[in-house]
Protein backbone atom coordinates (compact mmCIF):
# COMPACT_ATOMS: atom_id res chain seq x y z
CA UNK A 1 0.00 0.00 0.00
CA UNK A 2 1.17 3.55 -0.71
CA UNK A 3 2.06 5.21 2.52
CA UNK A 4 2.24 8.92 1.85
CA UNK A 5 3.75 9.60 5.26
CA UNK A 6 6.47 6.95 5.01
CA UNK A 7 9.63 8.87 5.64
CA UNK A 8 12.85 8.25 3.81
CA UNK A 9 15.70 10.57 4.69
CA UNK A 10 16.63 10.99 1.04
CA UNK A 11 13.06 11.89 0.02
CA UNK A 12 12.91 14.36 2.86
CA UNK A 13 16.22 15.89 1.84
CA UNK A 14 15.03 16.28 -1.77
CA UNK A 15 11.92 18.10 -0.58
CA UNK A 16 14.00 20.23 1.77
CA UNK A 17 16.27 21.19 -1.12
CA UNK A 18 13.27 22.18 -3.26
CA UNK A 19 11.93 24.28 -0.39
CA UNK A 20 15.35 25.85 0.20
CA UNK A 21 15.63 26.93 -3.43
CA UNK A 22 12.09 28.36 -3.35
CA UNK A 23 12.76 30.26 -0.11
CA UNK A 24 16.09 31.63 -1.34
CA UNK A 25 14.50 32.71 -4.64
CA UNK A 26 11.59 34.41 -2.86
CA UNK A 27 13.98 36.34 -0.61
CA UNK A 28 16.13 37.15 -3.63
CA UNK A 29 13.19 38.61 -5.51
CA UNK A 30 12.20 40.65 -2.46
CA UNK A 31 15.80 41.86 -2.27
CA UNK A 32 15.66 43.06 -5.86
CA UNK A 33 12.37 44.90 -5.41
CA UNK A 34 12.72 46.29 -1.87
CA UNK A 35 16.41 46.71 -1.22
CA UNK A 36 17.67 47.50 -4.71
CA UNK A 37 14.35 49.21 -5.56
CA UNK A 38 13.88 47.52 -8.94
CA UNK A 39 10.20 47.75 -9.88
CA UNK A 40 8.91 44.27 -10.80
CA UNK A 41 7.31 44.01 -14.25
CA UNK A 42 4.09 42.14 -15.00
CA UNK A 43 5.80 38.88 -15.97
CA UNK A 44 7.84 39.00 -12.77
CA UNK A 45 4.62 39.20 -10.80
CA UNK A 46 3.20 36.13 -12.55
CA UNK A 47 6.35 34.22 -11.60
CA UNK A 48 6.11 35.46 -8.01
CA UNK A 49 2.49 34.27 -7.83
CA UNK A 50 3.81 30.78 -8.54
CA UNK A 51 6.91 31.08 -6.39
CA UNK A 52 5.74 32.55 -3.08
CA UNK A 53 3.11 29.85 -2.28
CA UNK A 54 5.74 27.16 -2.93
CA UNK A 55 7.70 28.38 0.08
CA UNK A 56 4.73 27.67 2.35
CA UNK A 57 3.40 24.54 0.64
CA UNK A 58 6.77 22.78 0.44
CA UNK A 59 7.60 23.63 4.05
CA UNK A 60 4.23 22.22 5.11
CA UNK A 61 5.08 18.96 3.32
CA UNK A 62 8.23 18.54 5.38
CA UNK A 63 6.54 18.17 8.77
CA UNK A 64 5.55 15.37 8.86
CA UNK A 65 6.92 14.31 5.50
CA UNK A 66 4.03 14.03 3.04
CA UNK A 67 4.82 12.77 -0.46
CA UNK A 68 1.47 14.05 -1.72
CA UNK A 69 2.81 17.61 -1.47
CA UNK A 70 4.21 17.06 -4.99
CA UNK A 71 0.66 16.91 -6.31
CA UNK A 72 0.00 20.46 -5.11
CA UNK A 73 3.41 21.99 -5.63
CA UNK A 74 4.39 20.66 -9.05
CA UNK A 75 1.67 22.52 -11.03
CA UNK A 76 2.84 25.81 -9.52
CA UNK A 77 6.45 25.03 -10.30
CA UNK A 78 5.61 24.06 -13.90
CA UNK A 79 3.48 27.19 -14.43
CA UNK A 80 6.21 29.41 -13.02
CA UNK A 81 8.75 27.61 -15.20
CA UNK A 82 6.62 28.33 -18.27
CA UNK A 83 6.37 32.04 -17.50
CA UNK A 84 10.08 32.22 -16.69
CA UNK A 85 10.92 30.55 -20.00
CA UNK A 86 8.72 32.98 -21.90
CA UNK A 87 10.23 35.90 -19.99
CA UNK A 88 13.78 34.73 -20.69
CA UNK A 89 13.07 34.33 -24.40
CA UNK A 90 11.46 37.77 -24.53
CA UNK A 91 14.36 39.29 -22.62
CA UNK A 92 17.02 37.74 -24.79
CA UNK A 93 15.18 38.89 -27.90
CA UNK A 94 14.44 35.40 -29.23
CA UNK A 95 10.73 36.26 -29.24
CA UNK A 96 9.67 39.28 -31.23
CA UNK A 97 8.95 42.43 -29.30
CA UNK A 98 5.42 42.99 -30.57
CA UNK A 99 4.34 39.89 -28.65
CA UNK A 100 5.26 41.73 -25.47
CA UNK A 101 2.30 41.96 -23.09
CA UNK A 102 3.53 44.92 -21.04
CA UNK A 103 2.20 48.31 -21.99
CA UNK A 104 3.11 50.99 -19.49
CA UNK A 105 5.14 50.98 -16.33
CA UNK A 106 8.18 48.78 -16.23
CA UNK A 107 9.20 47.06 -19.42
CA UNK A 108 9.70 43.31 -19.09
CA UNK A 109 12.89 43.61 -21.11
CA UNK A 110 14.39 46.39 -19.02
CA UNK A 111 17.89 45.32 -18.05
CA UNK A 112 18.62 45.62 -14.34
CA UNK A 113 21.49 43.30 -13.67
CA UNK A 114 23.53 40.86 -15.69
CA UNK A 115 25.99 38.83 -13.66
CA UNK A 116 28.96 37.70 -15.77
CA UNK A 117 27.34 39.50 -18.68
CA UNK A 118 24.50 37.07 -19.29
CA UNK A 119 22.86 35.94 -16.01
CA UNK A 120 19.78 38.17 -15.89
CA UNK A 121 16.90 38.13 -13.40
CA UNK A 122 14.56 36.16 -15.75
CA UNK A 123 17.33 33.61 -16.28
CA UNK A 124 17.81 33.23 -12.51
CA UNK A 125 14.07 32.66 -12.18
CA UNK A 126 14.13 30.05 -14.95
CA UNK A 127 17.02 28.29 -13.25
CA UNK A 128 15.21 28.18 -9.89
CA UNK A 129 11.92 26.92 -11.32
CA UNK A 130 13.81 24.29 -13.33
CA UNK A 131 15.57 23.03 -10.20
CA UNK A 132 12.39 23.01 -8.10
CA UNK A 133 10.35 21.23 -10.79
CA UNK A 134 13.15 18.70 -11.39
CA UNK A 135 13.47 17.91 -7.68
CA UNK A 136 9.70 17.51 -7.35
CA UNK A 137 9.57 15.20 -10.37
CA UNK A 138 12.39 13.08 -8.92
CA UNK A 139 10.50 12.94 -5.63
CA UNK A 140 7.33 11.90 -7.41
CA UNK A 141 9.18 9.09 -9.24
CA UNK A 142 10.78 7.86 -6.01
CA UNK A 143 7.63 7.89 -3.91
CA UNK A 144 5.28 6.38 -6.49
CA UNK A 145 7.73 3.54 -7.16
CA UNK A 146 7.36 2.71 -3.47
CA UNK A 147 3.68 2.19 -4.11
CA UNK A 148 2.30 -1.34 -4.80
Amino acid at each position, binding site marked *: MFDRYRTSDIDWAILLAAW*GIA*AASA*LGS*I*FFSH*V*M*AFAPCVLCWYQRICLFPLVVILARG*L*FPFDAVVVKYALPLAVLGWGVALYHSLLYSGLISKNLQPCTQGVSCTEKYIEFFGFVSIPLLSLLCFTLIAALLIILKKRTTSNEI
Partner: protein
Amino acid sequence: MKYKIFAGICLLLIAIFVGTSYYYKKEQAQMYGQLARNSDPVFVRDHSRILGSPDARVTIVEFMDPACETCALFSPLVKQVMAANPGRIKLVIRYAPFHDGADTFVKILEAAGKQGKYWETLDAMFMSQPHWASHHNPQPERVWEFLPAVGLDMARLKTDMNDPEFARRISQDVADAATLNVRKTPGFFVNGRPLEPFSRQNLINLINEELKTQY
Protein backbone atom coordinates in the same frame (compact mmCIF):
# COMPACT_ATOMS: atom_id res chain seq x y z
CA MET B 1 16.67 16.90 14.15
CA LYS B 2 14.72 17.71 11.01
CA TYR B 3 13.14 20.69 12.70
CA LYS B 4 16.60 21.91 13.60
CA ILE B 5 17.86 21.60 10.04
CA PHE B 6 14.79 23.46 8.79
CA ALA B 7 15.08 26.20 11.41
CA GLY B 8 18.80 26.47 10.72
CA ILE B 9 18.24 27.04 7.01
CA CYS B 10 15.51 29.59 7.79
CA LEU B 11 17.85 31.52 10.06
CA LEU B 12 20.69 31.28 7.57
CA LEU B 13 18.55 32.63 4.71
CA ILE B 14 17.24 35.49 6.84
CA ALA B 15 20.74 36.32 8.06
CA ILE B 16 22.06 36.40 4.48
CA PHE B 17 19.14 38.62 3.46
CA VAL B 18 19.60 41.10 6.30
CA GLY B 19 23.39 41.08 5.97
CA THR B 20 23.37 41.66 2.22
CA SER B 21 20.75 44.42 2.53
CA TYR B 22 22.82 46.20 5.14
CA TYR B 23 25.99 45.84 3.09
CA TYR B 24 24.27 47.00 -0.11
CA LYS B 25 22.81 50.14 1.54
CA LYS B 26 26.15 50.98 3.07
CA GLU B 27 27.97 50.61 -0.25
CA GLN B 28 25.37 52.78 -1.97
CA ALA B 29 25.63 55.50 0.68
CA GLN B 30 29.42 55.48 0.36
CA MET B 31 29.23 55.70 -3.42
CA TYR B 32 26.91 58.73 -3.29
CA GLY B 33 29.08 60.35 -0.65
CA GLN B 34 32.10 59.87 -2.93
CA LEU B 35 30.28 61.43 -5.85
CA ALA B 36 29.14 64.35 -3.69
CA ARG B 37 32.61 65.00 -2.28
CA ASN B 38 33.98 65.16 -5.79
CA SER B 39 31.05 67.50 -6.50
CA ASP B 40 30.04 65.26 -9.35
CA PRO B 41 27.76 66.96 -11.90
CA VAL B 42 25.38 64.02 -11.52
CA PHE B 43 23.86 65.92 -8.55
CA VAL B 44 23.73 69.43 -10.04
CA ARG B 45 23.70 70.23 -13.74
CA ASP B 46 24.17 73.68 -15.25
CA HIS B 47 20.47 73.87 -16.07
CA SER B 48 19.34 72.89 -12.54
CA ARG B 49 17.15 75.33 -10.64
CA ILE B 50 18.57 76.31 -7.29
CA LEU B 51 16.69 77.95 -4.41
CA GLY B 52 18.60 79.65 -1.63
CA SER B 53 22.03 81.19 -1.24
CA PRO B 54 24.72 79.83 -3.59
CA ASP B 55 27.18 79.95 -0.67
CA ALA B 56 25.07 77.64 1.52
CA ARG B 57 27.14 74.69 2.65
CA VAL B 58 24.22 72.28 2.93
CA THR B 59 22.84 71.23 -0.43
CA ILE B 60 19.55 69.39 -0.69
CA VAL B 61 19.14 67.70 -4.07
CA GLU B 62 15.55 66.71 -4.71
CA PHE B 63 14.54 64.50 -7.62
CA MET B 64 10.88 65.30 -8.06
CA ASP B 65 7.83 65.08 -10.27
CA PRO B 66 5.27 67.93 -10.30
CA ALA B 67 2.49 65.30 -10.36
CA CYS B 68 3.82 63.41 -7.33
CA GLU B 69 1.71 63.81 -4.19
CA THR B 70 4.51 63.08 -1.77
CA CYS B 71 6.66 65.74 -3.45
CA ALA B 72 3.86 68.25 -2.87
CA LEU B 73 3.65 67.21 0.78
CA PHE B 74 7.40 67.56 1.29
CA SER B 75 7.64 70.98 -0.34
CA PRO B 76 6.44 73.01 2.69
CA LEU B 77 8.61 70.95 5.02
CA VAL B 78 11.78 71.71 3.05
CA LYS B 79 10.85 75.40 2.91
CA GLN B 80 10.31 75.50 6.68
CA VAL B 81 13.70 73.98 7.36
CA MET B 82 15.30 76.43 4.93
CA ALA B 83 13.54 79.39 6.54
CA ALA B 84 14.71 78.25 9.98
CA ASN B 85 18.33 78.24 8.79
CA PRO B 86 18.62 81.27 6.53
CA GLY B 87 21.54 81.26 4.10
CA ARG B 88 22.76 77.85 5.17
CA ILE B 89 20.70 75.56 2.94
CA LYS B 90 20.16 75.50 -0.79
CA LEU B 91 17.68 73.35 -2.66
CA VAL B 92 18.45 71.91 -6.09
CA ILE B 93 15.47 70.72 -8.10
CA ARG B 94 16.01 67.77 -10.43
CA TYR B 95 13.33 66.04 -12.46
CA ALA B 96 12.23 62.43 -12.21
CA PRO B 97 8.90 62.63 -14.08
CA PHE B 98 7.73 59.07 -13.43
CA HIS B 99 3.98 59.79 -13.63
CA ASP B 100 2.27 59.50 -17.01
CA GLY B 101 2.45 62.78 -18.89
CA ALA B 102 4.62 64.39 -16.22
CA ASP B 103 7.06 65.62 -18.89
CA THR B 104 4.45 68.21 -19.87
CA PHE B 105 4.29 69.61 -16.36
CA VAL B 106 8.07 69.89 -16.22
CA LYS B 107 8.06 71.74 -19.55
CA ILE B 108 5.43 74.15 -18.21
CA LEU B 109 7.64 74.77 -15.19
CA GLU B 110 10.74 75.39 -17.26
CA ALA B 111 8.83 77.72 -19.58
CA ALA B 112 7.54 79.61 -16.54
CA GLY B 113 11.16 79.90 -15.44
CA LYS B 114 11.87 81.82 -18.65
CA GLN B 115 9.36 84.40 -17.38
CA GLY B 116 11.07 84.45 -13.98
CA LYS B 117 8.19 82.70 -12.23
CA TYR B 118 9.66 79.25 -11.71
CA TRP B 119 9.18 78.88 -7.95
CA GLU B 120 5.77 80.56 -7.91
CA THR B 121 4.57 78.18 -10.63
CA LEU B 122 5.94 75.17 -8.79
CA ASP B 123 4.07 76.22 -5.65
CA ALA B 124 0.87 76.81 -7.62
CA MET B 125 1.21 73.38 -9.20
CA PHE B 126 1.73 71.63 -5.89
CA MET B 127 -1.19 73.46 -4.31
CA SER B 128 -3.64 72.76 -7.12
CA GLN B 129 -2.30 69.22 -7.64
CA PRO B 130 -5.33 67.36 -6.16
CA HIS B 131 -7.46 68.90 -8.93
CA TRP B 132 -5.41 67.71 -11.89
CA ALA B 133 -3.26 64.82 -10.70
CA SER B 134 -5.61 62.69 -8.60
CA HIS B 135 -4.91 59.01 -9.11
CA HIS B 136 -8.49 57.91 -9.57
CA ASN B 137 -9.30 60.72 -11.98
CA PRO B 138 -6.25 62.42 -13.51
CA GLN B 139 -7.15 65.50 -15.58
CA PRO B 140 -3.78 66.91 -16.70
CA GLU B 141 -5.41 69.56 -18.90
CA ARG B 142 -6.92 71.18 -15.80
CA VAL B 143 -3.47 72.35 -14.69
CA TRP B 144 -3.91 75.29 -17.07
CA GLU B 145 -6.75 76.70 -14.95
CA PHE B 146 -4.37 77.40 -12.09
CA LEU B 147 -1.49 78.99 -14.00
CA PRO B 148 -2.85 82.47 -14.89
CA ALA B 149 -3.12 83.27 -11.17
CA VAL B 150 0.69 83.20 -11.00
CA GLY B 151 0.78 86.04 -13.51
CA LEU B 152 2.20 84.11 -16.45
CA ASP B 153 1.96 85.15 -20.08
CA MET B 154 0.07 82.05 -21.18
CA ALA B 155 0.52 82.50 -24.93
CA ARG B 156 4.26 82.84 -24.54
CA LEU B 157 4.36 79.88 -22.13
CA LYS B 158 2.67 77.62 -24.66
CA THR B 159 5.25 78.43 -27.34
CA ASP B 160 8.22 78.33 -24.98
CA MET B 161 7.42 74.94 -23.53
CA ASN B 162 8.14 73.20 -26.84
CA ASP B 163 11.76 74.28 -26.68
CA PRO B 164 13.79 71.10 -27.39
CA GLU B 165 16.25 72.27 -24.74
CA PHE B 166 13.67 71.39 -22.04
CA ALA B 167 13.29 67.85 -23.37
CA ARG B 168 17.08 67.56 -23.27
CA ARG B 169 17.14 68.74 -19.63
CA ILE B 170 14.51 66.17 -18.70
CA SER B 171 16.41 63.31 -20.31
CA GLN B 172 19.63 64.43 -18.60
CA ASP B 173 17.85 64.47 -15.22
CA VAL B 174 16.23 61.09 -15.83
CA ALA B 175 19.64 59.66 -16.73
CA ASP B 176 21.16 61.11 -13.54
CA ALA B 177 18.25 59.73 -11.49
CA ALA B 178 19.03 56.29 -12.90
CA THR B 179 22.73 56.69 -12.08
CA LEU B 180 21.84 57.62 -8.50
CA ASN B 181 19.34 54.77 -8.28
CA VAL B 182 16.38 57.12 -7.72
CA ARG B 183 13.34 55.02 -8.62
CA LYS B 184 10.76 56.78 -6.48
CA THR B 185 9.92 60.44 -5.96
CA PRO B 186 10.82 62.51 -4.11
CA GLY B 187 14.42 61.29 -4.05
CA PHE B 188 16.46 63.36 -1.59
CA PHE B 189 20.21 63.70 -1.18
CA VAL B 190 21.64 66.00 1.49
CA ASN B 191 25.27 66.79 0.68
CA GLY B 192 25.25 63.59 -1.32
CA ARG B 193 23.83 61.42 1.46
CA PRO B 194 20.66 59.62 0.38
CA LEU B 195 17.54 59.85 2.56
CA GLU B 196 17.30 56.34 3.94
CA PRO B 197 14.84 55.08 5.12
CA PHE B 198 12.32 57.49 3.66
CA SER B 199 10.41 59.58 6.22
CA ARG B 200 9.81 63.21 7.14
CA GLN B 201 11.68 62.91 10.41
CA ASN B 202 14.68 61.24 8.77
CA LEU B 203 14.93 64.07 6.26
CA ILE B 204 14.94 66.63 9.06
CA ASN B 205 17.55 64.60 10.96
CA LEU B 206 19.73 64.28 7.88
CA ILE B 207 19.61 68.03 7.24
CA ASN B 208 20.35 68.80 10.90
CA GLU B 209 23.32 66.44 10.91
CA GLU B 210 24.78 68.15 7.88
CA LEU B 211 24.11 71.60 9.40
CA LYS B 212 26.00 70.50 12.49
CA THR B 213 29.03 69.27 10.56
CA GLN B 214 29.14 72.25 8.20
CA TYR B 215 28.51 75.10 10.63
